[in-house]
């Protein structure tokens, strides 16, 4: 489903290269964890997948279902089924959360050639999914993410993911800032999305999320490259020995 080939990328308008020859393949139905120390390029990778123009790809390619997405803007990528759950979701004053959810859902439906949702159906879906994430509907009456706590923002991201039903989900440090109860709710939400035709990429710094969302593969990112890949035991090993041991070994 996702194939990243020898990707090189830098911060636009500078010479600062962050991704330096990254290779990664994630198959449909797979949950892949990407781990790595601070500054290894994890968040940058997630932004590049979503199409943020602060970064410039200088070499290599990203194939999604066999086709390059480099020329697609973020909205086109989202329409194609790529979703990024942000590490720091944006607060947008003046945009009502419900209005935003409706516009986003209907934009994707339009891209798929479907009719807009009926208001009643829309409300019912939001209510159901919000309930499954233990979210209060009152929260959704506020402007998008404004005044939400860290945990509420992360839940709102997962809510959007469930409503938009993407094919490739990228979760950027979704566990940061969550207490254990919130973490469980979020993990349950993600696990409910596991399906044979969907791939999930979980970017995280810590192993604790991976106890709850058990990955099929684990990849260690260091200095903009995948330096080691393995199964879920690799995450456990990292937790025990830290990155230092592994990186010495890789060096």
């Amino acid at each position, binding site marked *: 489903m996702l194939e990243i080939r020898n990707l090189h990328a830098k911060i636009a308008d500078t010479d600062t290269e962050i991704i330096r020859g990254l290779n990664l393949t994630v198959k449909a139905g797979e949950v892949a964890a990407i781990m790595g120390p601070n500054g290894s390029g994890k968040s940058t990778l997630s932004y590049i997948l979503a199409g943020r123009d602060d970064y410039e790809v200088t070499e290599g390619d990203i194939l999604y279902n066999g086709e390059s997405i480099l020329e697609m*803007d973020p909205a086109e990528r989202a329409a194609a089924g790529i979703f990024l759950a942000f590490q720091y979701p944006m607060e947008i004053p003046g945009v009502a959360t419900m209005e935003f959810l409706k516009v986003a859902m209907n934009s994707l439906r339009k891209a798929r050639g479907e009719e807009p949702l009926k208001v009643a159906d829309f409300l019912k879906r939001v209510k159901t999914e919000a309930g499954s994430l233990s979210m209060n509907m009152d929260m959704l009456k506020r402007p998008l993410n404004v005044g939400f706590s860290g945990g509420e923002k992360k839940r709102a991201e997962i809510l959007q993911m469930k409503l938009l039903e993407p094919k490739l989900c990228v979760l950027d440090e979704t566990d940061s800032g969550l207490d254990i109860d919130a973490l469980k709710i979020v993990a349950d939400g993600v696990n409910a999305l596991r399906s044979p035709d969907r791939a999930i990429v979980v970017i995280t710094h810590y192993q604790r999320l991976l106890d709850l969302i058990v990955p099929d593969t684990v990849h260690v990112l260091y200095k903009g490259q995948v330096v080691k890949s393995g199964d879920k035991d690799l995450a456990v090993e990292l937790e025990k020995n830290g990155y230092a041991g592994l990186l010495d070994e890789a060096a």
Partner: protein
Amino acid sequence: MNMHAQPQRTAAETALLDAFAARFSDLPGDPAVAQKRDAAIEQIKAGLPTRHVEAWHYTDLRRLLAKVPAAEAGASANPVEALLSGSAILPILNGTALEKTPAIDGATVTRLADKLRDGSFAPALDVTGADDAIGALNVAFAGDGYFVDIAAGAELAAPVELQNVQAGGQTHVRSAVRVGDGAKATIVQRETGTDAALVSSVTNLTVGEGADVMWIIVQDQPEAATHLGQFNAWIGKDAKLTLFVMNAGGKLVRQEIRVATKGEGADFQLRGVNLLSGDTHTDVTMVLDHAVPHTGSRERVRNVVTGKAHGVFQGRINVHQVAQKTDAKMSCNTLLLSDDGEFDTKPELEIFADDVVCGHGATVTEIDKNHLFYLMARGVDEKSARGLLVKAFVAEIIEDLEVEPVVEALEKRLEDWFATHG
């Protein structure tokens, strides 16, 4: 020999003076009114203000008012649907009010032409200074409008809508509203039309003790219109005035807002939205006098500038020496959506009291790239995402009004504007 060089009159100045000569004998008014008109036209004879007059620095009226339309409208003007459903509409069509004024429970409505004729309105026909060009033009020509007298303690069942509609021509309307002590009212002032007119529209409002008034001005004149508005208000003890102004049309627009707090506990709220497009010029100039102790005000103005539009906000707050404990805060934020657009903000605080809290802030920004990316990452295409963000920027000001039917009606206006200009 007279050595004074007569300044060359512009085409517009000449047209205005010709119109006055032609119309003077038909303008309603007793001798006292006629005298005020004569004095006012002298001011126009001396020339329209240029950028050398401080109050007009960003709006050089003499240069910008290149020409004026023929005095008479080319067609008849028709009333439009009320902004707020159920409103009592007071139409002023091509400058003429209803001969028989409608009955409004709790208020007395008089036609202004009648009050000019019987002389009872002469004392209120004031030009406030050499730079009061809108006042001068209006006093010279004002023909009609309404005087609405809301009884003390009355709570109007429905909003009142003063509806100025023009189908071209030169129109000068004047209305006055007196809100009695403890009364409560919502008043809408529409400034609209079907053909390019030259309009001066002056409204005077007195808010009695403990009264509560929401006043909404929506100006959406046709593209080539010149709109010169002036809103004067005096707020009594413990009274509240919330003024909302939306400018979403006109080629050359100046809306003056002049407010004074007259009694302790008076509160003034201004919310302004300017939606500017094309090759237009829109100027909102506010002068607020905190003239007594313990009064408060908040002014929040937001502007969206597209095309080659030029916007101006001048906000001056005078805190008089006696006006201790004044609490005033003014902000003006602009979203500049094109490289050719321009917005000038001139906030001024003149504070003569020493125990006050006053502040102002102004920003000019573009659309936040991070916000845009976030919306697009959810599948919203770039154009729609920009639209959502721009609407959100001004909707915040509208939502401040907190009265649901008012918020809904104004957001609908916003939608309409974006549908044609977004």
